[in-house]
């Protein structure tokens, strides 16, 4: 039982933080939002830091790191509310590495690690909400070649990605496929999302696909759990910075002749925000450290974590705005963007009520970190 970070992990954190502070400031971010919410150059800089290959084995040109390094990285990206979707890269590189045939791995992982190819998860469907076991997209095989048909919604950088990891149904079972964006039959419609990032609808009509695994539901649950762990870590970074911004403001803003930080009712609110931050941080650790647990235990833990982070994000986001007052509802001021990011993260990979359902359904007689 040890929650210290290794020296290597601390160095990774420093490197990412330095890039975020110096290379991804609020002005650059604003420009990226205005330009559509995704910047391939910024993504390339993350690749130069090795982040895109974080989960990729050294054999395939990556760093061969694990969930703790991913957590450290996502926290720092969260601190800068970075728009480029490293979570997607981590999900898809892990999924390919764990479940795809060797040839598919060799074709994609080195390019993903280098930041040359972007692969994202395209799992969401209109009829499924947050349920992973509902999948209307269909796959079929003919002469050893697969095609996929269906529509996936709110796919991160869907019009910029090079390929998608796509769940589709085969004989009533969900399988996972890789579909290239340039494949015939694939079309996308892109748009901005709440937090200023980019997403798209992806329509596939008998699009050429490569099979990753027929045991798709288990792989998809694993993929989404990796996404949840990344999202939890990212949320911790966003919340940590949100609280810091709020504290700075309260120690500067004067009303009735004194800093608003001197009002006890507001001070107690800050104490409650600190509580939610530390509970959230604790559960983010828990999420990452349970990623390699057996599937049942992993699912239970990740649902608990995302539930806690959902509660924490809602409270910290809403209270940060409230404690600031009017300034925090302006686009000009940075706090509103942190708030919107927290809002969107809650609705990513299952919101608080959804996760509560998962926790409730998976309760056992005992409880606790090790149960």
């Amino acid at each position, binding site marked *: 039982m040890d929650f210290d970070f290794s020296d290597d992990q601390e160095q990774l954190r420093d490197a990412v933080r330095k890039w975020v502070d110096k290379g991804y400031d609020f002005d650059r971010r604003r420009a990226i939002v205005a330009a559509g919410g995704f910047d391939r150059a910024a993504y390339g800089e993350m690749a130069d830091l090795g982040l895109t290959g974080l989960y990729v084995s050294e054999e395939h040109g990556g760093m061969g790191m694990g969930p703790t390094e991913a957590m450290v990285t996502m926290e720092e990206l969260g601190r800068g509310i970075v728009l480029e979707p490293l979570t997607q890269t981590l999900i898809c590189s892990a999924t390919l590495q764990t479940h795809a045939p060797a040839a598919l791995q060799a074709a994609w992982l080195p390019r993903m690690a280098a930041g040359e190819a972007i692969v994202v998860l395209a799992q969401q469907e209109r009829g499924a909400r947050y349920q992973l076991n509902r999948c209307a997209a269909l796959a079929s095989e003919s002469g050893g070649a697969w095609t996929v048909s269906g529509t996936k919604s709110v796919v991160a950088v869907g019009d910029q990605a090079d390929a998608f990891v796509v769940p589709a149904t085969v004989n009533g079972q969900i399988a996972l496929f890789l579909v290239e964006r340039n494949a015939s039959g694939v079309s996308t419609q892109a748009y901005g999302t709440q937090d200023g990032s980019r*997403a798209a609808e992806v329509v596939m009509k008998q699009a050429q696909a490569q099979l990753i695994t027929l045991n798709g539901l288990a792989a998809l649950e694993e993929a989404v759990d990796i996404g949840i762990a990344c999202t939890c870590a990212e949320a911790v970074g966003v919340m940590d910075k949100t609280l810091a911004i709020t504290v700075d403001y309260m120690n500067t803003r004067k009303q009735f002749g004194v800093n608003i930080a001197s009002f006890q009712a507001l001070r107690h609110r800050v104490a409650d925000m600190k509580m939610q931050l530390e509970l959230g941080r604790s559960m983010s650790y828990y999420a990452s450290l349970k990623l390699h647990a057996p599937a049942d235990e992993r699912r239970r833990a990740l649902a608990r974590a995302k539930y806690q982070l959902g509660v924490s994000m809602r409270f910290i986001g809403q209270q940060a705005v409230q404690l600031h007052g009017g300034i925090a509802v302006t686009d000009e001021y940075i706090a509103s963007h942190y708030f919107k990011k927290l809002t969107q993260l809650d609705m990513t990979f299952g919101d608080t009520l959804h996760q509560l359902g998962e926790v409730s359904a998976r309760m056992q007689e005992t409880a606790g970190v090790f149960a």
Partner: protein
Amino acid sequence: MDLAFTPDELAFRDEIRTWVKANLPSDISQKVHAAMRLTREDMQRWAKILGKKGWLGWGWPTQFGGPGWTAVQKHLFEEECALAGAPRVVPFGPVMVAPVIMAFGNAEQQQRFLPGIASGEVWWSQGYSEPGSGSDLASLKTRAERVGDKYIVNGQKTWTTLGQYGEWIFCLVRTSTEGKPQTGISFLLIDMKSPGITVRPIKLLDGECEVNEVWFDNVEVPAENLVGEENKGWNYAKHLLAHERTNIADVNRAKRELERLKRIAKAEGVYDDMRFRDEIAKLEVDIVALEMLVLRVLSAEKSGKNSLDIAGLLKIKGSEIQQRYTELMMQAAGPFALPFIFEAMDAGWQGNFPGGVVANAPLAANYFNMRKTTIYGGSNEVQRNIVAQTVLG
């Protein structure tokens, strides 16, 4: 004790209902029911329709051309308008400045300003808040210096709602720095076309420009535009706040929006999900309780007995409810509330809305926008201070 309205009140309501149904343009009500974007023209069109009927100043006494309605009648009027999907009347003219002019303005000011307000012809804005004066309004710094028969105004106002459309603005300005901060404030009416006024819209987190900064750079204001006495403006503003009693709760809109929430929940398939449905049920109880609170205030006003000093409670609960229904609407759509497309909030947009139905387009924006409700109009923290004062002394 009786929950039912009197036959007279019910007849009154029917009259309003019939008239609103016949006169509210359906293109406007459709936008309101779908929470789509309203244009200046939409808002003013409805204001002028009301003005023509003599109901834009629905709270006005007959001596100033108002209908002279009772508190209950005003409430019923507001309810019928809200449920029918009428836009909220921009309050700065008919609800905010007019009562001050009636109570403290001179006859000349009344004749000059009230008709344009009553008809909906003149768009008024409010100039209270300043960058350094939010909850602590009395610390405002915008100066008005008397020079001959004019005031020279210098300073900055902010959070001026819809100020980009404003033709006139009523301002609290500092005319003296002596004594307590409250005592040196005056109430001034300013033509927004005056040289030296600059209006800059502020983009908010929902992408809309609902509020503005307004700068005053040596703006000349005729002294005849001073309402009442110099340095007494704080009292007039407080009088004005007393006119915001039950309407501040906005319970009628909440009822309409609860219905919309239920429609959205059904469309998104979560109305029969017990967890989500319970959240709606809790909100429903909140709204009924708030409505009862409003009705109690109205009853107390009607009879003059058992007066209730609970404006702070109405503001707190009303604003929390507004935030909650917008939050639940967004959560109902969940991932399909993530797309954020500015144009999709224009009624009639023909784009292909991603991931869901066009009705989802305003959900996130509405949620973001409503964060203001616990901040403005006296933040909920200030309201709690006030409520605590009435209870604890």
